Structure formats: structure tokens, C-alpha cells
């Protein structure tokens, strides 16, 4: 009996410690896809927007364009949500000198989103089986910020998209409160 229990325990520990989710992505000029694989039944594909270049002196640029979505959800339990969120750093950094930056703000749901704070851009609700893509997410670079760039060159910023399965319904329009 002890041996059987030990075996089961080891098996359970192994499954618990195994990588229960991983992401792989690719960018071929169009949107990028990130596959979420879970040990178990639920799975989906996170589609994130393609890399983007902001026009010189553009003060507002939508970086999502409703291009973030949760595709092909499978075996999502009832009353669960898959949330896709983005976070930003608040600064563009010069490729050749990281000390040179250009600040920006991210505007979503008519409010500024602080750097490092996740904001939901897309959702899948398992009760209605609807995939929601939310409003514009604008990177705002003020004219003064453009002019303050003392060093010429190419500046980049990473926008990180994360998706997760939560066991309740969340409505981002209600400030992320439980919808159910």
C-alpha cells in the first residue's frame, strides 16, 4: 500500500511540477500567435498584433487595432474567462544606447494606463462563447517628447501580452470586477 501511495505521490508531484503552460510565438509580417498548452483539457491560441512602427511625430497611434484575440478555445470550463492583457514600459529605448529614452503614455478605455499595469485587451467568456476584442489602445507621444529626443536613431519598446484562464467572469469595463 505504501509503495502504491509513494508511486502515486511521485506521479502527482511530477505532474504538478511539470510545465503546465508554455508559449511560443512567431511573427511573419501579420499578426503573431502564441499557443497556450495546458496539461489537461483547456487550450487556446492567443493572437497578438504584429510588430509596428510609429510614424515620425505621430502623437497617437493605435497599437492593437482589434488584432488581439483568443482563438480556438477548447474545453474551457463553464463560467470561466480567458483574459488577454497587455503591459507596457512607458518608455521607448534607443537601440544603440539604452540610456536614451522617449516617454509615452498608453491610453485605454479613455484613461491612461500606468507602466507595468496589465490592461485587458481581449476576452473569451465561456458562458456565452464569445470572444471580445476591446477598444483602441493608443500610444501617446506628446510633441514635447518627440522634440526632447536628443539622440537620433531607432527606438523600441516591448508591449507584452499575457493570457490566462480564470475561474470567474471578469468585465474590464467594470474595472476588472467579477461579472458573475
Amino acid at each position: 500500500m505504501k509503495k502504491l501511495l509513494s508511486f502515486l505521490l511521485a506521479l502527482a508531484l511530477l505532474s504538478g511540477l511539470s510545465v503546465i503552460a508554455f508559449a511560443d510565438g512567431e511573427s511573419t509580417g501579420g499578426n503573431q500567435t502564441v499557443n497556450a498548452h495546458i496539461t489537461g483539457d483547456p487550450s487556446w491560441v492567443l493572437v497578438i498584433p504584429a510588430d509596428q512602427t510609429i510614424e515620425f511625430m505621430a502623437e497617437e497611434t493605435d497599437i492593437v487595432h482589434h488584432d488581439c484575440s483568443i482563438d480556438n478555445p477548447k474545453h474551457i470550463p463553464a463560467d470561466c474567462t480567458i483574459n488577454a492583457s497587455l503591459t507596457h514600459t512607458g518608455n521607448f529605448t534607443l537601440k544603440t544606447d539604452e540610456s536614451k529614452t522617449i516617454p509615452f503614455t498608453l491610453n485605454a478605455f479613455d484613461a491612461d494606463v500606468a507602466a507595468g499595469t496589465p490592461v485587458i485587451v481581449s476576452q473569451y467568456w465561456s458562458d456565452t462563447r464569445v470572444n471580445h476584442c476591446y477598444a483602441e489602445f493608443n500610444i501617446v507621444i506628446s510633441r514635447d517628447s518627440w522634440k526632447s529626443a536628443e539622440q537620433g536613431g531607432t527606438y523600441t519598446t516591448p508591449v507584452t501580452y499575457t493570457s490566462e484562464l480564470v475561474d470567474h467572469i471578469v468585465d474590464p469595463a467594470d474595472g476588472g470586477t467579477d461579472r458573475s
Partner: protein
Amino acid sequence: MKRILCALLLCSLLCALMPDAFADGVQQVSLSIPCTVTVDVGEYGKVYSNSTTWIGPSIGSFQVWPGTRVSFLITPDTGYVVNVLTLSGRDVRDGLRYGLYGTVIEHNETLVVRFGKPASPSPTPTPSPIPTLWPTSTPSPWTTPVPTTPPWQVTPPYGPKTGDENTVGTWATLLLVSAAALLVLSRKIHKPHTDQAQKRN
């Protein structure tokens, strides 16, 4: 013992089955700021680039988008060579070919060009060069060829070869012989005076 094992087993199973899966992806957003290229040209030459000619001594600048390849045609005045060629402080003289220097601009850069007289000829250049008026080199893609003249070569406007080029050695030898002769003569002249002075004493 069995109870503890069962509890651990249950905990592990719960951990494994928890729906905390996630997936990450990164979108790179980029923008470009035009790069300023400053050209600082010293006297005795000129630099041509981006449809502009800077005649030394002068300082000017132009702007290009990052990633643009920029070429500079550097032409010293006759009898001068490029002594200093730096790009934002880095010595880039090795990149100079037939008066052309090219680079890809990724951020603000400053090109400094200084001209000077070529270095004095070395006494025993090895291998000994065959004196030619102009170097035999592949022609520059630019319409104005810029020769890279070694310091030992004779360049215009010194005129055609007459056979009198190697007069420095001759003159130096004559000067030495004259000096030695003068020294000997002066000793002979001064010696009797010193002998008379000794006799008086």
C-alpha cells in the same frame, strides 16, 4: 504516515489541476528619429557628402534616417594628405579607400577630418619603391580621382623628372666636407697665436 502521504498526494493533484495557465507574447513597437551627422573639416582639403561640399576649415551637419548608408568623398589639397579621420571619436582611417569613406548611420555621429603635409621620407624605405608620378590603382567610382600618394613619391606640381631629384645627399656630403675643411683651417690659423702667447708668458 499514511494520512500525511494522502494529504501530500491531494495537494499535488490540486496543484496540477489548477487552471492557472498563461501564455505570453511580445509586440515590438518602434519609431525612428532622424540622425544628425556633423562634419568637421580642417583646412587644406574638402569633404563632399549628401549633395554638400564642406571646404575646410568648416563645420556643418545634415540629417538622415537611421540605417542610411552615407559616403564621404575626402579630397586633400595638392601636397596634403588626410592626417586625422574620426567618427564620433573612433579612428576610421582604415576605412578610407581612394578618398572615400562610407558608414551606416544608426545614431548621431560626428566626422572629423584633418589634413596635413605627408610624413618626411624615410631614409631606407623597404621595399624600395619605383618612383612614379601617380599610383597605379583601380579608378575611383567617383568622377574626381583622389590619389593616395605614398610620402616617398613625387607629386605635382614639382614638375617632370630631370635627374636632379636626389640632391639632398650630395649637398649634405658637400656641407660636411666643407665644415671639416673649415675646422682644420681655423685650427691652423689659431695655433701660432697661442704659441706666441705662451712665449710671452
